[in-house]
């Protein structure tokens, strides 16, 4: 993906989503930057579809498993 191209849909998504989440409206430039970052991130996460993650447990559990481990 060309990093300079920001899909309009991404910018619309970001603008809509953030409407009630910030004290002051974001500038056009800030929205564009967020849309660019979100598009890149989504592209990166979509690449994870190359793995079969359907049977893999989310890692949120490993942290508690470590805490519960007790060698004593």
């Amino acid at each position, binding site marked *: 993906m060309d990093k300079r191209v920001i899909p309009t849909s991404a910018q619309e998504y970001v603008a809509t989503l953030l409407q009630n989440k910030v004290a002051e409206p974001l500038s056009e430039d800030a929205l564009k930057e967020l849309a660019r970052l979100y598009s890149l991130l989504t592209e990166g996460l979509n690449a*994870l579809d190359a793995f079969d993650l359907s049977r893999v447990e989310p890692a949120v559990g*490993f942290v508690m498993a470590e*805490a519960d481990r007790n060698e004593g």
Partner: protein
Amino acid sequence: MKAEELAFTSIAELAPLIQRKEVSPVDVTRVHLDRIERLNGQFLAYLTVLKDEALAAARNAEHAIMRGQYRGPLHGIPIALKDLFAVKGVRLTCGSKILADHVADKDATVVTRLKQAGAMLLGKLNMHEFAWGGTSLNPHYGTPKNPWDLTRLPGGSSGGSAVATAAGLAMGTLGTDTGGSVRIPASLSGIVGLKPTYGRVSRFGVYPLSSSCDHVGPLARTVADAAVLLQAIAGPDPKDSSASHVTVPDYTSALKEDVRGLRLGVPQEYFFEDVEPAVRDGVYAAIQHLSSLGAVVEEVSIPSIQHVIASSTAIIAAEAYEVHAQTLKTRSQDYGSDVRTRLLLGACIQASQYLKAQRFRTLLRQEMLDILGRVDALVTPTTLIAASKIDEPIIHIGDKEFVVAAHIARATRPFNMTGLPTISVPCGFTPDGLPIGLQIIGRPFEETTVLHVAYAYEQSTPWHERHPTSHKEFL
């Protein structure tokens, strides 16, 4: 011992002198306070200096030691804390305008433990706002300066912690590491930074960035000092359910110089791509050196690691947004623009994306654990670049262009995702005189292994003996 010499001696060297009553904790503290007063205006390492409190604690330490009540290697040692650790009655800014007047009403567990060990708190240290960045660029309090070159970044987010330690403004410090924030500034500032296993150190009273990636760790001038600091803060904590019950070993007993037969894995992908040539050469030389000491070095492969940045960004950003969601609704304009952007990126992440990233994280962790079943530790560069200029957000490596703020954490983030213990130890300098860091990664709760390898390397090389004292600003 002269004042300058005292300021750059190690905790491990000074502690026996204090125990034998040959050096006074009050004198040690005064030396550091004098240096802070004289030099902090240039370095911007400290946000709050606890002069009276530190001197009072030093007097108490001295009286106790004179009465024969020596507590251990941190008794009478002045240290400092990144300004996201709560100290009761002391300002807690997190490097942000938003918390400029916030005063903590309790001590973080690690603060309680350091006080119990007899350490004196010199003050609170500058950082990347809310720890959400690897540079320590700070629009509110100014950017801390790298002591090896004041025009360059110290790295972050625990930038003030690294600067204070490297510049002799504290004997050791604590930082936090969510994507590399202890190891990056340690590497760029020429000191040791240790990120323990997830759950090894309590985070009670530590302002969170990303709950599943946050780690507390020490920054020190030597590996032995990092071991001493970790010893004081590690262990379970009823106030933090993520703090592990795994037995805390004696870390100083791990400090051995013999690495013969230890198996070290060098990942063949990712960590040596898009790396500055001087950094690559320094790290390869360090690996060769470990091999010459008798370590068995072999190539390993972590195929899925290429996807670590997207998945870790999704996790950290989503978790950080959850922490700041309410404040963004009322004071979004008071955040620095870079941190506001990163926080709002977290607001955009869907639950399905977050879970996908967490599933990938399990896969990556298992891949690394499988490799660590065959080797004792992994070795990589800590950062792929040396310290860059404060005013240059873009760097070039070969014919490629990189955003410093993103590229700086490329080699450290994988181990926040996997929770593995990781240390950065100085392994040389670029032709420009900038420090290079070697990263050593071990199995869960085997901090002893990474300390062992780091110590053996450190003790057989001269890098830890160099301090940035050649700059006239230090005299």
